[in-house]
Each structure stands twice: as C-alpha cells, then as structure tokens.
C-alpha cells in the first residue's frame, strides 16, 4: 500500500518534471491565465526575444481595466487613455503569441477567476497560474491554483513550468451545519479572523468538513478566493459530484470518451484517509453568524452582533497597533455596535462574490424594497450578466434603485473611476479592506452579498437575518 496522500500531494507529484538540489522542483503548469496587468511580463518576454512556448495553455481576458459603464462603446468606453491602451495591449500580445483572447466585446469576457471555472478551463487536478493573487479561487474545483508576480509569469509563458519549493499543507475543517443567512463568505471571514492574515503563510489550505462539503460550487469558490487573505499560497477543496456536474458540457471541459477518462482520474484525487497535513485548524460552523470587517485588514472581522473592539484588548502588540490605526482610518469608536455603523455606498461583485448565487442572494433581500444609498452590482462575467437578466434579477436591482452594470473588477480595486470617495463607507462583497483599496481614503466593510443588500436597504450595517426570515 502506498502511503496515504493529500489532494495537494497527489497534484504536486503528478506535476513534478524534475528535482534539483535543495528540494526545488520544476513544476508543469497546465493552465495559465493572463489579464491586462500582465503587460510587464509580455514586455519583458519580447525584450528578451522569447516566445510563448505553449500558447494553447494560456488564456487571456480583459477584466481589470474594462469599464462597467458604456460598454456598448467597446474599448472606447474606457475613459482613461492608459486603460484603453492596456486593454488593446492585451489583445495585441495575445494575437502576436497565438493565445486565446476574451476581449471587452467577447461573450466569454469576465473576471479571470470567474471565467476560468465558468469555461471549464479550470479542472480538478490541474496546476493553474495567473499573475494575480486571487488565483487561489480556482482551487475550489480541486486544482492547485496560485498567483505569481510578473517575473514568474514570464517564466511560465516562456517555458510552461515553474521552479518551486514544496509548500506546507494546512487542513481547515469546518464542522457542523450553517444556519440560515450564513454563507461561504462568512465562513472564510471567520477562518481569517481566527488564523490571521499571515496564519497560512507558506501553506496550501485544504478546506474540509461537513460545512465545506455542503457549500455550492459558488460558495467554495468564495472560500478559496480569500485563502490569500490568510496568507496561503493556495486554497483547495476536494472535487466531488457537484464539481463534475458543474463542469460537464463547459467549453474547455473534456468531452465524450475524454470526459469518462477525466472523471476516473478526478475521482482518485481526494485526500486519502490517514493522510498527514503539516497543520490542522478546526471551526464549528454551527456557531457562525454573518460576519463583516470593521478594520483595514481582512482578519479584523467580527460577527454582526458584535461591537467595535477596543484595540487594547486584542492579541499581540502588532494587532493592537494595527487596530488602533485601523479605527482612526475607519473613524470608528470602540464599543460601537456594528449595526450602529452608517453605510454610504455598496458594491456587489468581484471575483469573491460576483457569481449567480451571490446575485440571487442579494436580489432576494432587495426584492420589493428600496435602496437607501447609492449602490451597484457588477456581475462576475458577461455570461452571468445575461443569465441574471434571463432570471429577472436585473429588474429587481433596478426596481430597488440599484445600478446594474457590466462585468469587471470595478470597485473591488477602484478601477476605471469605480472608486469610493474619500471618507465614505462602503459595504463591499469584495476581498480586501486595505487602506485605499477602493479609493484614497475610502472605508471598506467586507461582507456577504446578502449582508451588503441588507445594508443597501437600511443605510447601515444590518443583520440580514432580521430583515428576511
């Protein structure tokens, strides 16, 4: 009997081309994704006179710099000349290198971490890379997916492999069952609050336990997306029938006899009983409430029933110093009930929570209600936008007074003028509440789509469970 292996061990071993002294391996990369921000890597590649070695393994999509308004005007709809240039540059780099390109007008356009799974580019057992930290998202389908910087991206483009040291493994087990109104976003915020933003540095997380198994594919994608916010190299969930059903028939998923063959291989991937992880953390999902962040780090998150903490009561000196600064930036006082915090803006979208289930959850809260504050929705992909429109979700948002926009990174990273003005407070379904992330001086509270929708209705942080029963 071979010794029991984790999901990660299996994928890693299958992709090792060779080993060097010192424990470094050359890893084969199955799928590489690029976006407008990848221009540094393409530029450096061209400067060195190198070519993309396996262009069929790279997929390009315009997401970071595409505007969410004026999309009927194509690239010209981008107000900023630099942004237009970057969108065109990606198209040009893709053409020159023979890479599949989903441009601003393509029906397959969307946020890179939404369309990877949506088009079946992401599959169980694959190594997936992208010059973006939230590449961890794709691990929800049972892939080893991780972000790189421009230099490593250049290496992948030039060689289709990457030198790497084996990361450690951390299993995060979430037991029990979630109560109504508690979502994947709340689960991952609770995990980060528990282990900290550096809690998984150097590790690949495998999420396991009854709660994770019960999550939809969308919910798992949300959880894996924010792995990087706990410092992890990647996050993953063992593939199961839900994943196979999700993938079946998608454009780049295997077909016919290949599908059957793939399925056999995928079914062998989940972690074996008795496999060893370097670390393990357990949470009780039954205890979880809707969560939100009060500070400027994703670990500064609390249940909605809590109050703004007194920095002096927090863990270590670093956390105390960070929290004091965060409260000043967020203009909050210790002891304030989170539900007493006024909200000025809301953003529903991003690679964390811009999927169909997220849009449905927000629409369910907004149905028949009116927005008390300016808010907009940007679906995670153009295909999802159409799907949501077919389901009538756009009408619900518009009737509530919420803007229905096109797909892109938008307000998640203050792109294309989708910024939150300085001093204003935004309920956001994205993944980072860093100072200035949504605009200079903008104050971000991260939460689930349902919670953001509740804030839209009341203009303050609201326990969505009290609004809808």
């Amino acid at each position, binding site marked *: 009997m071979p010794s029991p292996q984790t999901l990660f061990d299996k994928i890693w071993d299958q992709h090792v*081309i*060779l080993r*060097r*002294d*010192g*424990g*470094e391996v*050359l890893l*084969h990369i*199955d799928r590489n994704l690029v976006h407008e*921000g990848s221009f*540094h890597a393409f530029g450096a590649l061209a400067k060195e006179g*190198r070519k993309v070695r396996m262009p*069929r393994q790279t997929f390009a999509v315009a997401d970071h710099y595409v505007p969410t308004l004026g999309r009927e005007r194509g690239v010209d709809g981008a107000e*900023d000349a*630099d*942004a237009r*240039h*970057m969108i065109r540059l990606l198209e040009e780099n893709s053409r020159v290198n023979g890479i599949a390109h989903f441009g601003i007008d393509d029906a397959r356009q969307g946020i890179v971490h939404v369309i990877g799974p949506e088009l079946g580019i992401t599959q169980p057992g*694959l190594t997936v890379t992208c010059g*973006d*930290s939230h590449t961890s998202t794709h691990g929800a389908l049972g892939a080893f997916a991780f972000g*790189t*910087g*421009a*230099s*490593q991206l*250049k*290496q992948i483009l*030039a*060689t*289709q*492999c990457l*030198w790497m*040291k084996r*990361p450690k493994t951390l299993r995060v087990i979430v037991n029990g069952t979630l109560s109504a109104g508690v979502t994947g976003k709340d689960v991952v915020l609770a995990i980060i609050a528990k282990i900290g*933003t*550096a809690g998984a*540095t*150097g590790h690949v997380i495998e999420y396991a336990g009854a709660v994770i198994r019960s999550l939809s594919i969308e919910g798992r994608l949300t959880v894996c997306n924010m792995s*990087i916010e706990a*410092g992890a*190299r990647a996050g993953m969930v063992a593939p199961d029938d839900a994943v196979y059903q999700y993938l079946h028939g998608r454009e780049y998923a*295997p*077909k016919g006899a*290949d599908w059957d063959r*793939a399925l056999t*291989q995928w079914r062998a991937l989940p972690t074996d009983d008795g496999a060893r992880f370097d670390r393990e953390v357990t949470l009780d999902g039954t205890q979880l409430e809707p969560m939100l962040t009060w500070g400027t780090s994703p670990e500064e998150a609390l249940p909605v029933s809590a109050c703004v903490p007194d920095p002096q009561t927090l863990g270590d000196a*670093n956390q105390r*110093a*960070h929290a004091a600064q965060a409260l000043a930036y967020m203009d909050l006082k210790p002891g304030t009930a989170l539900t007493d915090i006024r909200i000025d803006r809301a953003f529903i979208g991003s690679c964390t929570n811009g999927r169909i289930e997220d849009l449905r959850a927000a629409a369910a809260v907004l149905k028949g209600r009116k927005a008390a504050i300016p808010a907009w929705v940007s679906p995670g992909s153009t295909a999802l936008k159409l799907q949501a429109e077919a389901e009538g979700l756009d009408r619900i948002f518009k009737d509530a007074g919420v803007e229905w926009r096109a797909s892109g990174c938008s307000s998640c*990273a*203050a*792109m294309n003028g989708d910024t939150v003005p300085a001093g204003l407070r935004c309920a956001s379904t994205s993944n*980072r509440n*860093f*100072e*200035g*992330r949504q605009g*200079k001086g903008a104050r971000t509270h991260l939460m689930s789509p349902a919670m953001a929708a509740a804030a839209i209705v009341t203009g303050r942080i609201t326990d969505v469970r009290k609004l809808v029963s």
Partner: protein
Amino acid sequence: MKPFTTLTAVAAPFDMANIDTDRIIPVRFLRKLRNDKAGYDPYLFHDMRFDGAGKEKPDFVLNQPAWRQAGILVAGANFGCGSSREGAVYALLDYGIRAVIAPSFGDIHYANELQNGMLPAILPEEICRGLREQLQAEPGATLAIDLPAQTVTDTIGEAHPFMIDPVYKERLLKGLDDIGLVLERLPAIESFENRYHADKPWLA
C-alpha cells in the same frame, strides 16, 4: 539578473506589520510603463509618502533627511502581503532599496523580490524590533548585509544570522536566470509533457 552579495546601506526603520502591496504601490500606478527613463520610484508608498496635493508628508520615514537615501528597510511581520503586483518590487528597487529585513513576508511578494535580485532577509521579531530601535536612536545609520555569511551586522557591530533557503541564496549570489535554468533541461521537459498529455489528451 544582477547578483546580490553584500550590501552596506542606510537602513530605514518601518515600524509596522502587515504592510500590504497596495500600500507599497497603489493600484492606480500599475498601468504606468517602466523603462530606463521612467522608474517606479515616485509611486513607492505613495499615499503614505504624499498628501492629497502631492506634497511630502514630513512624518513619513522616507521623507526624513536621514532616511531619504535608504537602501534597506527594516519592517514588521508579513511584509508585502496581499496583491501579487510585482510593481511593489519595482517601486522599492527603483527607489534604491535592495533589501528588506522583516520577521516574515507575504509568499508572492517574497518570490517577487528574489526574482528581481532583491534580498528579503528573515530575522526574528525581537531582532527586527531591536534593529529598528537602533536605527531610530541613530538616524541615518547603516546596516551591513553579508549574503554568503547570511548575516546582518547592526550599528554596534553585532552580527545577526538571517534565514534564507540555500536554493534562493544561490540564485541571488550568482544572479541566475530562472528561464535559462529551465531551458537547459528541455529534453526532460518534453518527455514529461509527452507522457503527461498521452494520459490527459484533452489538455494538450
């Protein structure tokens, strides 16, 4: 890549943990081209360094005369967490910083520093704090980094051993090029790919 062996430079104490890459370079500058004429140095720590009118904030460490020429940063834990943007490294390098000393780093940023011939030196939390205290007490003082010996020598001449993986150390010392190291092994790579894709033809 430029090899890294030793560096003696003014070191700036950056007394803050979890410095994310959005702070090191705000997203709006990532669209900027970087070439011989235009570096990324003006964007480094932009919103901490400059006020809304573009004027320097006098309190910020790199705006103080003693540390304007800093070549080393001594920071808190989890330096460079967050976004994978390599622009953060370009901004540090173009400003003139070639080494960051911290108790820990964000994984992607750590790799990005190495890829650009920068040294991310890991020293225990207490040592980093001690170094920052020395540098505060003696603004403009230098630290000496010796990569072959894996030490940081502080302002009173005490050498502190830092951690770095031997593989990364060799890369930095020799200024090795990752792509070159790969392409030397092309036959092994191709035979792997043939075998691998025979088993998974839909991926080829």
